[in-house]
C-alpha cells in the first residue's frame, strides 16, 4: 500500500480514458472508447437540441418530443423499443436539457447491434410511426410528469421563478425545460414533423460507443445502421436573443409566501458560459461553497450558526450567453427567511477571502467524484458525447482533473469578488404561510 497521505501532487495523471474520433459521410460524429473489462456496452447519442431551441408558444416541446422518440419508428412498433432492450437485459433512458437531448442504452455487449438498430431506426425513420393517439398519450404522460415533479411539490416552482429572474424575457433560458401546460396542449403532429426534420439529423448528433465491443468491426456496424440516413439542412438560429450582459447589474428578487414546510432562500448568479475557461473557476468556487461537510456553507450555516438545515450549491454548465451558479439554504421552523437570506449573502461575499487549502480540498473531492463516475460505462459514454458535441474535443475528459487543479485560490477570490455580490444576484425566497 502506498503510505503517502495528502493531495496527489499536481501533474500526476490519474485519468486516461481511451477514445477515437470518427465521422460518417452524412456528418454523424462518432466517438469510440474501448474497454472489455465487463461484458457491457453503452450506446449514447447527444443531439444538439434542447429547450433553448423551442419557438415562442412551444415551451416544453423538446422534452415532449423526446417522449415521442420512444413511441416507435418505421420498423419498431410502439413499446417495442423498451421491450427489446429490457429483453436483452439492458437499461435505457433519455433526458432533455437546455442545450441538448441525450438518448442512451447500456446492454450486454453481444446486443450492441440491437441498440444501433433501434437508435438508427428512429434517427432515420421516426415520422412514419407518428400519429395523434401517440401524441395525445405522451402529452398526458408529460403533463403528469410536470404535476408529479413540480406542481404537486412544495417549492416545485423554484426553477421557473429563478430562470425568469436570471434570464430576460427574450433569452432562451427564460423558460423551463418542462414548459407550460398551455404550450404542451398546443403541440401538434406538424410540430413533431418539423422538429424532427430540423434537429434530428445525423449532422446534429454525436454517437458514442463505449465499453466492450470489437474494435475491428465497430465502425462497419455503425456505418451499416447509420450510414444511409441523409444529412439535414442548416440549423435555424436559436430563437430570441442569447446575448447577455455578464452581470445582472443589481439584485432582482421574487418573494413567495407558499404552502411549504420550512423557509428557504435561493440565490443565483450569472457566471461565464460552459465553453469559457472561467467556468472551471466557477465550478471550483461552487465546490468550495457547498460540496462536502468542510465546505463553507455547510460549516458556517449548518454547523456553526445553525441557521440552515441544509445547503445546496450547483453550477449549471450552459452554453448560451451565461451560465448560472445556484445556492440555497433551508431554514428551521419559525426562522426568518430575511435573516436566512442575509446569512447566505454574507457567505457568498465572504468567499472573496478563500484560502488555498479550501480550494485544494474542493479539487480533491471533485477529482474523486469524477473518477468514480467514470467507473460506469454509460457515464463515460455520456461525457465523451458531451465533450464532442459541445467542444469537438472528447479528450477534454482526460484533462478535466488538470483543469480543476489549475484553479488557484486567487482565481476563486477574484471570481467571488466579481460575481457573487449584490450587483449580480437573483433571489427567490419561500416563506411558509397561506396554506390551503
Amino acid at each position, binding site marked *: 500500500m502506498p503510505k503517502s497521505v495528502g*493531495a496527489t501532487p499536481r501533474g500526476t495523471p490519474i485519468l486516461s480514458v481511451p477514445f477515437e474520433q470518427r465521422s460518417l459521410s452524412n456528418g454523424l460524429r462518432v466517438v469510440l472508447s474501448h474497454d472489455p473489462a465487463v*461484458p457491457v456496452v453503452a450506446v449514447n447519442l447527444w443531439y444538439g437540441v434542447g429547450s433553448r431551441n423551442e419557438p415562442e408558444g412551444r415551451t416544453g416541446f423538446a422534452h415532449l418530443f423526446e417522449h415521442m422518440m420512444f413511441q416507435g419508428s418505421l420498423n419498431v412498433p410502439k413499446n417495442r423499443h423498451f421491450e427489446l432492450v429490457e429483453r436483452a437485459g*439492458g437499461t435505457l433512458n433519455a433526458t432533455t436539457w437546455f442545450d441538448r437531448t441525450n438518448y442512451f442504452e447500456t446492454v450486454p455487449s453481444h446486443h*450492441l447491434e440491437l441498440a444501433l438498430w433501434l437508435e438508427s431506426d428512429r434517427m432515420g425513420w421516426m415520422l412514419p410511426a407518428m400519429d395523434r393517439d401517440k401524441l395525445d398519450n405522451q402529452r398526458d404522460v408529460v403533463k403528469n410528469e410536470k404535476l408529479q415533479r413540480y406542481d404537486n411539490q412544495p417549492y416545485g416552482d423554484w426553477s421557473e421563478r429563478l430562470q425568469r429572474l436570471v434570464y430576460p424575457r427574450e433569452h432562451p433560458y427564460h423558460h423551463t425545460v418542462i414548459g407550460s401546460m398551455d404550450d404542451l396542449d398546443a403541440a401538434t403532429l406538424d410540430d413533431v414533423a418539423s422538429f424532427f426534420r430540423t434537429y434530428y439529423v445525423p449532422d446534429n448528433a454525436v454517437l458514442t460507443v463505449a465499453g466492450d465491443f470489437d474494435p475491428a468491426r465497430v465502425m462497419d456496424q455503425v456505418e451499416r445502421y447509420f450510414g444511409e440516413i441523409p444529412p439535414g439542412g442548416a440549423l435555424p438560429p436559436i430563437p430570441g436573443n442569447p446575448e447577455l450582459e455578464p452581470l445582472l447589474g443589481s439584485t432582482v428578487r421574487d418573494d413567495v409566501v407558499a404552502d411549504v414546510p420550512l423557509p428557504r432562500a435561493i440565490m443565483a448568479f450569472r457566471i461565464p458560459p460552459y465553453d469559457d475557461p472561467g467556468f472551471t473557476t466557477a465550478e471550483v468556487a461552487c465546490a468550495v461553497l457547498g460540496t462536502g461537510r468542510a465546505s463553507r456553507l*455547510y460549516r458556517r450555516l449548518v454547523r456553526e450558526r445553525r441557521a440552515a438545515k441544509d445547503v445546496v450549491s450547483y453550477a449549471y454548465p450552459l452554453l448560451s450567453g451565461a451560465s448560472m451558479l445556484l445556492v440555497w439554504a433551508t431554514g428551521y421552523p419559525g426562522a426568518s427567511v430575511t435573516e436566512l437570506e442575509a446569512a447566505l449573502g454574507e457567505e457568498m461575499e465572504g468567499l472573496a477571502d478563500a484560502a488555498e487549502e479550501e480550494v485544494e480540498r474542493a479539487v480533491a473531492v471533485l477529482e474523486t467524484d469524477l473518477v468514480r463516475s467514470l467507473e460506469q460505462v454509460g457515464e463515460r459514454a455520456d461525457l465523451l458525447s458531451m465533450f464532442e458535441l459541445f467542444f469537438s474535443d472528447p479528450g477534454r475528459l482526460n484533462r478535466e482533473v488538470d483543469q480543476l487543479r489549475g484553479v488557484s485560490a486567487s482565481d476563486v477570490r477574484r471570481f467571488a469578488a466579481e460575481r457573487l455580490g449584490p450587483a449580480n444576484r437573483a433571489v427567490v425566497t419561500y416563506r411558509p404561510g397561506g396554506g390551503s
Partner: protein
Amino acid sequence: MTPLDRSIPPEGGEIRDFVFPPVDRRTLPTGLDLRVARVSRFPVVSANLFFRAGEEALSGGAAGLAVLTGDALEGGTRRRSGTELAEALERIGARLGVSTGWEGTSVSLSCLAARFDAGLALLAETVLAPGFPEAEVARARDQQLAGIRQGLMDPASLASDEAARRTFAPGVPYARRQEGTLASVGPLGRDHLRGFADGYYRPGRGALVVVGDVDADEMEELASACFGAWTGEPPASNGFGVEPRTRERRVWVVDRPGSVQSEIRVSHVGVSRADPDAFPLTVLNTLLGGAFTSRLNLNLRERNGFTYGVRSRFSMRGRPGSFQVHTAVGTEVTAPAVREILAELEALVSGGPTSEEVEASRDYIAGIFPLRLESVGQVAARITDQVVYGLDDDYHATYRDRIRAVTLESAWEAGRSHVRPGEAQIVVVGAAATVAPALEGLGVGPVEVVAPAED
C-alpha cells in the same frame, strides 16, 4: 456482409460470461468479519462497515434514535471536531456516508486507492471514538425534526408512511417511519446517543467490506491496525413477527386539499429475502410492475396516460416487508387508476403470466445483473447485502442461475400465495373532496378519509 433488412431486429452475438468478483473472507482475532474483493479497473476503493445498530432494535418510544446516532457521527470524534474530521476526509478527497436502516448502520467510504489507508483510519475513528459533542447532537436532532416536518408536507412521503401504518400490525417496527416522530426524536440528547452507540456499535454479526484495487493480506493488516481494539456483540434481536394490521381490504384517503395529483399505494405484507418463493416472485413482479414494459406501466402510462410511471415491488428484508404498488396520477383519474391496478393484480393471480412474459423477465433480470456491478461501490453494496441478510457465500455467483430456473408454474404459484389484492390496503393522498366520492363509487372496500399525520 449480407444486405441490411431493417424490418428485423438484429440477433444477439456471442454472449460473454460474467463472473461476480471472488470474495476473500476472513475473521480478525477480535471477531470482525472482513470481506475483500479485488477490482482493479479504476484507482478507487469503496469500503462499507456494517454493524447491527438498526431501527428495528428500538421500540416506538425511541424511534429514530439509531438514525440520529448515525447522522451525528459527523459531529466529530474524541480527537477531532466535526469540521476537523470533515477537513481531514476532504483533504484526501474521501467521501464518508452513514446510512441507517432497519437491520443496522452502514458507514461507507470511497476514495482514490492511493489514499485509502488514511481514509479507513478516519472511518474507524469516526465509528469507534465518536465525540457526540452537545451542540452537534442538538444540531443533528433539529435537522432530523425539520426533515420529519418536510415529510409531513410531501405527498409521496405521506403516502408511504400511511401505507406502512395501514399494512403492518401495531408494534411491528415496519409500521412506523425509520426517522421516528417529532415526539420520539424531540427529547433525544447526547446521553441517549452515547448509550445506544456503547451497546450497538459492535462488530459482532457485522462486517467490513472492501472492494477496489487492493490486496486482501494488506487489507487484513490495515483493518487490524484500524479496528484491533473493537470487540463485542450488539444485543440480540428482539425477534418480532410480522403480522398484517388487517386482512380486510380498505381505502384510506389522506386529505391534502389543493392537490393536483393523487399519490397512490396499494399494499400488503410480502415475503422475506430467505423465502423459497423469493426468486419466482422477483420474476413475477418484474412483469407485473418492475420494468418499463410491465403490465401496470403499459396500462396506466402507455395506454391510459394516467401517470408518469407506476411500479410494484416486494421489499424483501431479513423479515417480510411489504408488497406495494406505487404511483402518482391526476386527481380526476384517481378512481379509474385504482380500478386498473386492482384489475391487473387480479388478472395476474387468476390468469397467470404468459410464458413469453416469464421468459422476457428472466432475460431482463439476468441480463442487467452485470450492468449493476460496474463500480466498486455497487459490488461493495451487494457483498454487504450478503452480510445484512445472511445470504449464502455463493448467492451472487448463482443468482442468475436461480433466476433462469424460475418457470411459469413456479412464478404463478408464488403469485397465488403472495399477491393478494383482496387484502390490500389502498392509500390515496390527495384532494379528498374530489377523490373520496369517486373511490366510494368503485365499491372496492370501505373508504375512510383521514387527516394527515401530525408528527
